[in-house]
Structure formats: C-alpha cells, structure tokens
C-alpha cells in the first residue's frame, strides 16, 4: 500500500471523512509551494493534490487557469514540481501527494521516466484530466510498477456500464465530478450530486471523493454526507491569488481556511 491507500484506509476505519486540498505548484512562485503544503496539512488536509502547470488546461475554470499561468510564469516545469514534492517529503513522509494535470506534460518527460522520478520524489497518485482509462494502458503499467495510483474520474454524464468499467480500472480513489462544468463552477446541485454519489458508492469498494464546486465548510459538509471525502480547490487557489503581492501570508491564510472546512467536515452526520 502506498501512502494514499494507507491514509484512506485509516480514515475509513476511524469513520472520518477525507479532506483533499488542491493548489497549483509554483503559484505564485516556487518558494511558496512547500510552506503552503505544510500549512494545508496543519489545517487538517488528509491528502494533498498538487497541480502541474499546463499551457492549455481545457477543463479548468478561470481561477485554476490563472493559477496555471502564474505557475508557468514562475518557471514551474514538471521537473520542478517533482523537486518541490521531494522537498516537502523531507519533513513529511506520511501525507499522500497526488499530482493533477494534463497528459502532454507526462508524455514530454516519458511515461516510464515520469513514473520513476515521481516515485523517487514521493508522489502517491496521479489525476490526468484528459486521459480516459481506454487510453491509459501504457501509463498505468509504469505507474503500477512505481506504486502510484492512477485516480480516475466519474462525471454526471457517465453511464452505469461505463462507471463499472472506470471503477474497475481505478486505483486509490474514484473522483466524482459533482457538476457539468469546469472547476470552480457555482452550479453545484447537492441533491442530484448526493444521489449520484450514493449510486457510485454502490458500484465500487474504492473510496469516492467528491469535487468541483465545493468551496466552504457548509458545501463540504453537505457533500461529504454522501461521499468518503471532498476535494476543495478553486476556493483555496482564490486565496492564493488574492495574496499574490504578499506571498509570505499565504501559508497562514490557507491553514485557517482549511481548518474551518475541517471542522465543518468533522461535524458531518454519518451517511445513511
């Protein structure tokens, strides 16, 4: 078991919901990223999702697009992202790190080289937004050898047959995209998403995390009632964007924001 599987197993046994937090590497500069990751953990994050800056982030809303542009402007290549993870690992060898990005970043490095370097840096999982499982055979082969979980997504439009196929191919957890739209959209319908989450959890023994449109303690609590955990991204990235001129204040701002979401989650009622 890698750190991700161990952590999610521990949370499940304890009956706790997982809090997955997302920030983009190198936003606003590489010096901020490692302190920010530690602050997220201090605030109560269970899993760290770290964005790989990419020039053409097709599925992101404006907030995360802008973060990718800031990451690129600060020179944060995939190699640097892996260096930042390795740096974080020097003082935290327990918290799982999941990279999120677009396939061309991995292809440019090479699937095998990426898997080896990512394992060495201390990466536990990978989310590739534009890589459906049908196209993932080669990358999955090398990730498996490196004990890195390829996390797959299920959307509101995914049919039942397809969801069965996706969950049969997934590792770590299944990421449920809670709405039709890009990251950070405001159109989350908690009732519809809740019903889909209950359906999805019947289909798979893997933990199911719910993301897109979760921005605070209330929405985190509402969605976590139907899932094993939630992903919060755009709300945290917006905090980073607002503090762009005073990056020294970013870690503390993230810590207190995540602590508030954590306390909301911990008050979550047990799901039916």
């Amino acid at each position: 078991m890698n750190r991700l599987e161990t952590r999610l197993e521990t949370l499940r046994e304890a009956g706790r919901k997982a809090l997955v937090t997302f920030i983009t590497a190198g936003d606003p500069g590489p010096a901020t990223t490692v302190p920010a990751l530690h602050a997220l953990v201090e605030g109560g994050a269970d899993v760290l999702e770290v964005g790989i800056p990419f020039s053409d982030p097709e599925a992101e809303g404006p907030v995360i697009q802008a973060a990718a542009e800031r990451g690129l402007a600060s020179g944060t290549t995939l190699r640097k992202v892996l260096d930042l993870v390795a740096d974080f690992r020097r003082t935290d060898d327990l918290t799982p790190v999941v990279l999120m990005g677009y396939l061309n970043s991995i292809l440019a490095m090479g699937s095998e080289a990426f898997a080896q370097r990512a394992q060495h840096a201390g990466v536990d999982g990978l989310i590739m937004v534009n890589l459906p499982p049908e196209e993932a055979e080669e990358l999955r082969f090398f990730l498996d050898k490196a004990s890195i979980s390829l996390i797959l997504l299920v959307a509101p439009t995914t049919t039942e047959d397809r969801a069965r196929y996706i969950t049969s191919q997934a590792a770590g957890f299944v990421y449920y995209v809670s709405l039709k739209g890009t990251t950070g959209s405001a159109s989350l319908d908690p009732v519809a998403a809740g019903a889909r989450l209950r359906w999805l959890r019947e289909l798979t023994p893997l933990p199911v995390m719910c993301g897109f449109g979760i921005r605070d303690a209330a929405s985190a609590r509402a969605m976590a009632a139907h899932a094993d955990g939630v992903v919060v991204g755009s709300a945290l990235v917006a905090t980073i964007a607002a503090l762009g001129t005073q990056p020294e204040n970013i870690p503390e701002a993230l810590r207190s924001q995540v602590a508030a979401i954590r306390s909301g989650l911990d008050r979550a009622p047990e799901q039916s």
Partner: protein
Amino acid sequence: MTPETNSARGANHYAQPIDGHFGQHGGRFVAETLMQALEELTELYQSAWVDPAFQAEFRRDLELFVGRPSPLYPAERLTRHLGGARIWLKREDLNHTGAHKVNNTVGQALLARRMGKPRIIAETGAGQHGVATATIAARLGLECCVYMGAEDVKRQSLNVYRMKLLGAEVIPVTSGSKTLKDALNEAMRDWVANVDTTHYIIGTVAGPHPYPVMVRDFQSVIGHEARAQSLTQIGRLPDVLVACVGGGSNAIGLFHPFIDDHDVRLVGVEAAGEGLATGRHAAPLNAGRVGVLHGNRTYLMADDDGQIMETHSISAGLDYPGVGPEHSYLKDIGRAEYAAATDDEAMAAFRLLNRVEGILPALESSHALAWVAREARALGSDAEVIVNLSGRGDKDILTVAALDGITT
C-alpha cells in the same frame, strides 16, 4: 460521394479507424464529462452517414445553398508563367461564405438538428469557420455562439461584424495566448457545461473522435469532385495534389478520395512563418513532436516540458500548434509528404495569382500556391497538378494592405 462508393472505398485499412485511432495518432483524450456525448455523436454520425435520407439532405444543401460542385479551373496563364507543370485550381473559394469550411458546417448542423440540440458553438481563428457556422445556424434557426481569441477579434474585425449580422454571439477569449488554440479551449469548457443542449462544431479534422473522421467525410466532397473532374477534364488522374495544412481539413478533403491511387502524389504545405529555423512558424509536421492536445494525439508544437508553444503565421487560419491526426499518420506511413512555405513565399504567390489569373486567394491557400510556384518547373510540363484553392482572400485585404503601408 454516395454512401455506397464511400463504403467501397472504406477498404482503406484506416478509413474508419477503430475508436478513431490513426496508427499512434488520434483517439479521444477529453474530460470524462464529454465521453458520453462523444459516444452518442459517433453513433449518430455513423448511422446518419449511411442513411440515404441524410445523404440526400446533405447533398441538396451542398448544391443549392453552398453552390457545389466547385469548378476545377485550368490556370493557363499561371501555368505559362511558371513554365512547368499544368496547374488546375479546385475553386473552393467560390463556395457560399468563401471557403471550404462551409462543407463541414452544413453537415454538422444537420446532425445537431437530428440530435435535437438547439444550440451550436464553434471556435474560430481568422473567422472563416465562425462565419460558416453562424451562416448555417441562421439558416436552420439554431442559437450560435462563436469563441474567438481576443487578439484575433482585433485582427479580424470584419468577420466579427459579419458573424454578428448573422445573429451569432461572438465571445472574445482572453486566456492563454488569446488566439485559436485558446478559443478551442474555451469552446470545450462551454461544451462541458452545456453538453445536454449544445453541439460543438469543430472546424477542422482535429479534436477527439469522431471529429477527425466526421469532418474528413464531410470535406471529402472536394476530392470526390476533383477525382471525377480530373477524369473528364484531364482524361486521367492528376499526378500531384497540393493543399495548405493548418488543422488540415481542406487537405484531407482533397486527399482522401485519392488515398488508394498510389501514383497520385499528395503534398501538404504548412506555414513556415518567418522560416522553420527561426522557430516562429506553425509547422508541427515539419518541426514538431508527438503529443496530446485538444482531444487527440498528433504532432504538436510543444517545448521540452510539454507546454504548447505560440505559433506564428501571416495567415490566421494556419496559426495553430497542432494538426489533424490523419495527417500525422499519412506522414508516418509516407503516403503524403509535408512541405512548408514562409510568409514571404505565400505573399508572393498571393500577388502572383491576383495578377496572372484575376483570382484573389486566401493567405492560407497561398501557401499551397507557393509550393507550386517553387516546384512547377522541376515537375515538368507533363505533370498535372491540382491545387486546392481553399478560400478567397477578401478577408485578408487589410492584412496585405498594412504590409504594403496602405492605411485604411
């Protein structure tokens, strides 16, 4: 161009590729939210394409609305001027809306209506695909929204106004490099959010499956006509077909019906911009690497970190960092060859065609003409060459006038 002849020609081992793969290229690399919509579109498209009622509707629109067939014109003065191969122009510039783009929008809009989707979206660079989409949306009474890079909105103000006259909403895209690739990203984001009501009309033979196959089939009317016209007007098949390649839809449309005619040489011409050696170009087949962008695996202009590079061409319609996956495959197997022409060469060909034939070509098509101008003598006077004149150049007048120092 009937379904029967098309399926007979489907003996090509990649004519209807499995899951949209052309060798290592193509495929379907999109966010999960779009997978079901692409599957439904694939099924609907495949059944429509072999449905005689759909074919009749499509062909009727091409004849009565677009004005097909387009002539195969013998460019006699150009031939004499260049002193070599006999040159024929496939006159896609004479289509309604002034370019080959409309062949595809007519077909896809009919599909949108079959799917009962009341809204269509499109991306556009120079504005030709946007105009062709807005045109067919107006005709069928569909809501239309066109994404266009903010830089291109500034450069192509006439086409922006034209789309608005046609009732379309034009949305300037301010993310990334503010050009065609960013317009495509934004259209994808719209589609993810509105997939239940909206059909996305991609303008070229790129994107996730089924777009490269579907757009190719709609554009293949160019090559089917050219093949029949060659047999009648030349008395045999041509020796060389030449077309410019940005995404590559006019080139695939011309090439595809000739794929099995192995004696016919297929030449695509990319935009070399300020020169391949300068890095300021839009020639992924000449100087790119294989990667994944906009839903398909293909040759791309990308750096060592996989970031998509900004491209340059005098022609906005060729100013794109990727290329249709079938072209990447034709390059890999050696069935087609891909050359490049610089901004200066294209401009010279643009001026030449104006003067010796009285035809104003699009700057995109001028790249294909530039290759012919370079090679005509070497090909020899026995060679019969068809150049796809993919669009007319009215839209480029202001660009060219500015280069000549004429302010408007």
